[in-house]
């Protein structure tokens, strides 16, 4: 062992972090090298002084702030889960178009379930009511999320997350819910648009169409609004009719948005 490799291991030797054979080799070198022996003595003293510094204590405010963050995250987690499950429930209740990927026997059993749900919820009227409730929830949830940690990540980070989620070939519910959440709540237009674009690949899922429809009334950016309308047209979401009619008649809405809504009503 030479002086350099010996000295590079002095911190670990002082901390007893070296394995037995390496420690023995370092000690042996120190024992035979006056320069390294002196170096070990002075570095050891510096380490001891550093370790003897009294620890600084944080103020009690730190614990209170972190406890608040945990509670906020719990609330966000709970409301997001509720929101996503509400969307899914609404999508199931209004699931008139079984996916072409679902096996026939599942389609039959699904149809039976939908008959039951249709009876239970009063078919489309009840679904519309559920969607209205969802929209109210979107507004409440939006305020919460806007104040929460979502905004503390950079736009680039969030965009990367959305684009990464879009590359998942067989996304589970959590990925789909994440994309819908981003489209609904992200403060960046770019992120919302990209989330919507990524959702095109999953437009055969009722939850995706229901999510876009629930978010449309809350969206304020004309570019995203028109893209959402295009999405609903492309996916033949006839249940969007009432919402599109409302938008087409809204004097405060952007001219392009009103025009897109009119065109969509004609196409649907």
């Amino acid at each position, binding site marked *: 062992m030479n002086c350099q490799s010996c000295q590079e291991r002095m911190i670990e030797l002082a901390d007893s972090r070296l394995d037995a054979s390496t420690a023995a080799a370092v000690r042996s070198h120190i024992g035979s090298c006056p320069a390294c022996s002196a170096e070990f003595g002075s570095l050891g003293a510096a380490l001891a002084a550093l370790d003897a510094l*009294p*620890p600084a204590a944080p103020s009690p405010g*730190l614990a209170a702030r972190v406890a608040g963050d945990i509670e906020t995250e719990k609330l966000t987690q709970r409301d997001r889960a509720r929101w996503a499950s509400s969307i899914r429930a609404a999508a199931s209740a209004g699931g008139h178009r079984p996916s072409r990927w679902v096996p026939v026997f599942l389609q039959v059993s699904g149809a039976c379930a939908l008959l039951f749900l249709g009876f239970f919820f009063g078919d489309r009227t009840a679904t519309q009511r559920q969607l209205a409730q969802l929209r109210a929830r979107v507004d409440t949830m939006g305020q919460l999320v806007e104040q929460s*940690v979502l905004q503390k990540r950079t736009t680039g980070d969030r965009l990367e997350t959305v684009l990464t989620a879009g590359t998942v070939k067989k996304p589970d519910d959590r990925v789909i819910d994440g994309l819908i959440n981003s489209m609904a709540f992200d403060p960046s237009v770019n992120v919302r648009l990209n989330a919507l674009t990524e959702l095109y690949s999953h437009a055969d899922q009722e939850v995706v169409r229901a999510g876009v429809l629930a978010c449309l009334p809350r969206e304020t950016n004309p570019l995203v609004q028109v893209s959402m309308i295009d999405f609903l047209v492309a996916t033949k979401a006839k249940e969007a009719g009432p919402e599109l009619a409302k938008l087409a008649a809204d004097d405060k809405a952007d001219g392009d948005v009103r025009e897109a809504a009119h065109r969509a009503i004609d196409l649907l």
Partner: protein
Amino acid sequence: MEPDAPLSDHELMLAVRDGDLDCMGELFERHHRPLFGYLAKLTGNRTAAEDIAQTAFQRMLKYRHTYRDQGSFTAWMYHLARRCANDHFRKSSSAPVGIDPAALEAHADDALGAAEAAASRDDHALLHRALGRLDRDDREVLLLSRLQELSFSEVAGILECSVGAARVRAHRALRTLRDHYLQMQKEPLT
């Protein structure tokens, strides 16, 4: 009947990852003091250290899904804290300046006599100032290497360098600190 053994940090973080966010409170209790102490020495500023520590715990919550099954919670925590500290330095666009020892020392050692306590305070003040003279990278590697719960390979992982490089940097930083400290002992009092 023996009481249940407390959950390890790793088990607690896995529970957080799976949605039990209350476990983050226990992790905070266990780790916020050493984390704050590290950040206070790194930044030389108590307020900044508290802000960075809070942001680190926020990111642990936010990125809980990225926590690995085979991992060291402490290494992961310091990895996130390092990024938070870097963001802080980038935003404030200045490396930490001289450390104010009085602002960092919570209390003098009550076990010492008055004269010894005063001498000890002087030594601590000098060492804080010597730390403040180190480059931030040197201070970072040196302070991380003093955390007994981190191995050198974990320190290397946090710094995203090889174990050998971490060793060399820590050794160099310690020598620089020693030299500053010895130099300052010779400087006349102002």
